[in-house]
Every structure is written in C-alpha cells, then in structure tokens.
C-alpha cells in the first residue's frame, strides 16, 4: 500500500469505448495543449496525491431509492427508459449542459493560463482544467453508456460530436461564452462560477437516475479543490493589495467579480423555476432557494477577503480591532483611516445588476440595487464597473445594444433573452486537415 490518498470510499472507474476516449484526447490536443504538462508537474505540486486519471468515476454507496419529488421512495432508474419521459428529457438536457460547461471552462482557462505570475497558481489551474476534462469525460460516459433513444433521435456519437464542437461563444450557458481577460479571470472564475457548479452537483446527488447520481460525489470532491484554487490565490492577492506595489489590486478583483457574478446567478436558471426538476426527482432545491444560498456564500467569501485585506492594512491592530473596523465600514458604507468601503473593499453586486436572464433580466438595476430611469446612464454605470478589456468585447457590446432596445421598447424581453449566445448545432468541426469529426468510428475489420 502506498501513502497516496485513497480513492474516496468505494468507487469504480470506467474508461469510455475507444472511439469516444480517442475523441476526447483528440479534443484535448487541440483545446488543452498544456494537459501533458500536468503529469510532469504532478509530483512537484501535488506530491503523494493520487495520480490524475482520465476516466469516469462512479460512487458505489448511492441510495437505491428516489429521495425527492413525486416518486419519493420508489427505486431509482437504472436506464433512461425507466424514467418518466419528461424526467428523461430534462435529464438529457442537464447532462448536455453540464458537459458543455466542463469542456467550455477548459477553453476559457487555456487562453490565459500562461499569464499566471505564480507557478503554483498556474499548476493549480492546470489541475482544475484536467479535472474539468475528467468531468466532461464523465458526462460523455453518461451519454454513451445508456440508451437515450426514448427521448432523442440523436445518436450518441452525434451528441458527443456536438459537445466537442462547441467553442467559447457557442456553449449552452453564458458564463462559458465569455473570454478571460487575464489570469485574474482564471482565479475569480474558480471562486465564483465553480461555486455554482458545486451547488448544481450537490443538488444532483439526489437524482432519480442512479448512474447520474453516482457520478456526483467524485466530481464534488474535485470541485472542492477548484473552489480553493479560486479563493486561496484571491486571499493572497488581497493581502498584497494592501501594499503600494501590488500586481493585482482590489479594483481589478472587484471588476472581475462584477463581470462574473451575474453570469453565475443566471446559471441557476430563472429564479421563478426549478419546481419541475424537484417534482421529477432530479434536484432537491428550486432555483431561487439554491441561488439565495449561493449569494450568502459569496457574501461570506467577500467578508473573508476583506478582513484579510484589512489585517494587512492595519498590521498593528489585533483581530478584534480589525473585526470592529470591518463591521463599522460595512454597516456605515463609510471610511476608516485611509480605507473606503466604496473604493477599497470587495462588494457583491446586487442580484439585479447586469442581468440578462431570469426574473431580473434587463431590469436597469445598479450595482447597489438602485433602479435607473435612463438607459444610457445605466449602461455607463455598468460599463464603469467592468474590466477595461471586457468592456471592449462583443459580449458587452451585444448586451448594451440589447439593453437599449429593451428599455426603449424596441425589443421584447423574450427576444432579448433569446438573443444571447445559444447552443450552436455544429457538427464535424475538428480543425485537423485530415479529419472532419472528433468521433471517428473504427473501420470494420475486413475479411
């Protein structure tokens, strides 16, 4: 027995059939070229951890009976045909969306991975990317190891092809269609967007489809490290931000939070929905309930970061004194000996700020929750709070144009929500000159 950490509890691992396994590796060579570096760096940054495995990991100690919804107490489905048609249909959409987020985040991380100013932070993000690849692999396992024909005419190979063909800009959820501006985005994304992932995986642990429920615990265990990959570098950065020579400032972090938080909120789905998934036994919380818990957790994260910053600013003061200063600053939204609540500390935007989907989509709600009457004033208010590089993006331009049209009554809310990036039905998009598909079926043996 080695001294490496054991696999959590009782788990089995599975490899995809060769055509799909090769398709994922083929995708990795194009979209995640740094992946081989992980094996080289593993012993240095993650000594004695279990080696990374590109495989599906299935928990064995998962309940056999449905935990929530109309069929509570009944046996969990072992195949899609055992689910109610509506549940199977809904679940297929969830798995596809989940797969899209896993592969999509790798594409986003890869673009700015080399801009990390700390090799350890870079190695952590590299591991996060590899584990997202494994999560995507896990979703492909779910799509290809069961018969989904009762709810879709699409063949498994075509479903995989569609997922692997998505690019930043054509993914299912908006958060995965934004490009990163710098390594700050790699880190803030882990803290803010992966946190939504944790909520989704936790809710899905109860899913009425057992193979899906059994996929959640191993993914959740890895997600814990992803959140630390966001929060711990941010903690170090805010401490350094108290010094005049800081490379990453509180202002930069605040702008990145303003960029990602609204997209994170929208990943929960419309605040008024989610009852159907609970009723069907696929999740155990409605969208609003989960989103509210997420907001509270993000608040806690920012309190933690702000206190760390203040401890560095007031090195001569003890814990109780700094706690009292922070409580006063937060309550009064004021100033204390050189520190301003508005200018120096991290704040969570109001949940209506910069929204494009859900109950507050395109409502002109400002950072602090104030409602704007004039759309141009509102757009200027949002722009000034976003990272400079992001302000120049197509994404922001599209939002501003759409916001204007909605506010002036030139576009319906429904059309505005629809006009955001949506799933692109693209097939055969491998960029290799000698191939037109990611999934290449093996040639039948000749006699």
């Amino acid at each position, binding site marked *: 027995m*080695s001294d490496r*950490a*054991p696999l*959590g509890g009782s788990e089995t691992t599975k490899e995809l059939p060769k055509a799909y396994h090769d398709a994922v590796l083929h995708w990795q060579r194009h979209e995640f070229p740094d992946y081989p570096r992980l094996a080289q760096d593993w012993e240095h940054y993650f000594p004695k951890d279990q080696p990374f495995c590109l495989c599906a990991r299935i928990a064995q100690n998962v309940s056999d009976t449905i935990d929530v919804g109309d069929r509570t107490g009944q046996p969990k489905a072992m195949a899609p045909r055992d689910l109610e048609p509506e549940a199977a249909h809904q679940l297929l959409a969830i798995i596809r969306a989940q797969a899209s987020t896993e592969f999509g985040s790798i594409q986003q991380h890869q673009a700015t991975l080399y801009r990390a100013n700390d090799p350890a932070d870079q190695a952590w993000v590299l591991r996060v990317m590899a584990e997202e690849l494994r999560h995507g692999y896990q979703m492909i396992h779910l799509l290809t190891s069961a018969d989904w024909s009762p709810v879709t005419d699409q063949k498994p190979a075509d479903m995989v092809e569609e997922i692997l063909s998505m690019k930043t800009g054509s993914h299912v959820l908006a958060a995965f269609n934004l490009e990163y501006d710098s390594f700050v985005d790699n880190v803030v994304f882990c803290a803010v967007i992966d946190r939504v992932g944790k909520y989704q995986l936790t809710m899905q642990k109860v899913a009425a489809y057992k193979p899906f429920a059994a996929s959640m615990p191993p993914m959740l*265990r890895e997600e*814990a490290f992803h*959140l630390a990959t966001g929060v711990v570098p941010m903690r170090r950065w805010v401490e350094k931000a108290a010094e005049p020579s800081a490379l990453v400032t509180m202002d930069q972090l605040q702008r990145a939070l303003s960029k990602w938080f609204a997209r994170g909120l929208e990943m929960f789905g419309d605040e008024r929905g989610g009852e159907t998934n609970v009723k069907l036994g696929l999740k155990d919380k409605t969208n609003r309930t989960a989103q509210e818990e997420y907001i509270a957790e993000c608040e806690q*994260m920012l309190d*933690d970061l702000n*206190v760390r910053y203040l401890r560095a600013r007031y090195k001569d003061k003890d814990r109780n004194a700094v706690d009292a200063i922070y409580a006063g600053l937060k309550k009064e939204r004021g100033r204390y000996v050189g520190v301003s609540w508005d200018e120096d500390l991290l704040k969570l935007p109001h949940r209506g700020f910069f929204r494009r989907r859900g109950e507050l989509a395109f409502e002109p709600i400002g950072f602090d929750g104030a409602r704007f009457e004039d759309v141009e004033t509102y757009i200027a208010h949002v722009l000034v709070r976003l990272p400079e590089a992001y302000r120049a993006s197509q994404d922001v331009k599209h939002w501003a144009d759409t916001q204007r049209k909605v506010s002036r009554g030139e576009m319906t809310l429904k059309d505005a929500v629809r006009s955001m990036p949506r799933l692109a039905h693209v097939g055969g998009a491998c960029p290799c000159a000698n191939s037109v598909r990611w999934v290449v079926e093996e040639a039948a043996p000749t006699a």
Partner: protein
Amino acid sequence: MSEARIRALTELDIDGLTRIDEAITGRYRPEVWEQRVVYYMRRDPDAPKVAEQDGKVVGFMLGEVRGGEFGLDEPTGWIEFFGVDPTTRGGGIGRRLTEALLAHFRERGAKIARTMVAARDEEIAKFLGAMGFTAAPLTALERPL
C-alpha cells in the same frame, strides 16, 4: 446560542481556523492554514471536519486516511490538526469532531486511527485518552541537524 453543527471543512473556513489558532497560540498565520486546507481539499475534502455555531467556526479537526507511513501498511486514519475555540471548550465539541472524523475514517476503510501528541500537551493527551486512544507501540524520536 445554538448547538454546534459538525460538517466537512470548506475553503471558506480558512479564516475560522486561523482565528482559533490565533486565539490559542497568539500567532496570526493565515498562509499556514491556507496551505493546510488546500492539502485536504485536493486529497479528501470530506475528511476534515469543523464545528460551526451561530455561523462561526468554533472547532476543527483535520486528518485523512493514508497507508505506508513508518512501515505501517494498513490504511490508517491520521488525526493531524485539532483546535477548539477557547471560549467554547467544555461543551463536547472536541468529542463530536473526533467521532465525526473517526466515522469518516471507517467509511474510507481504516481499521485504526493514529495521532501524535507533544509531551507538554497534557490536556490534549487527556482528551484523546478519553476518546479511547492509548499509547502506541511506537516511539517518536528526533535529533537536531
């Protein structure tokens, strides 16, 4: 004051652990606790436990199952770091943390739990004795280099 809830450690507990350490040792060492928490987060995040009372971390116990150390081949649940807020001691939080961590060790297949206690930490030794720990047939040795 509500009863403490025992749950798995998360990355948002770093400050809570730092606070307890500061209250016990008088030293502010956030970077030390960041490093330790990340270690567990990447290996077995379900293992380390914290006690939370009224939204505040009032105790923690960090450990994991490993095998192969010191020639001890069998999977061993190692208790490595442990602290309870001095203002909440005596309320059974340490006992509940230990029980939760030992239960996790059993789930992970360990049949034995081990730890080491500094000779001067009589209070901790007494607590662990009350939790069923006895002297092991091993002696911790050291020499200056």
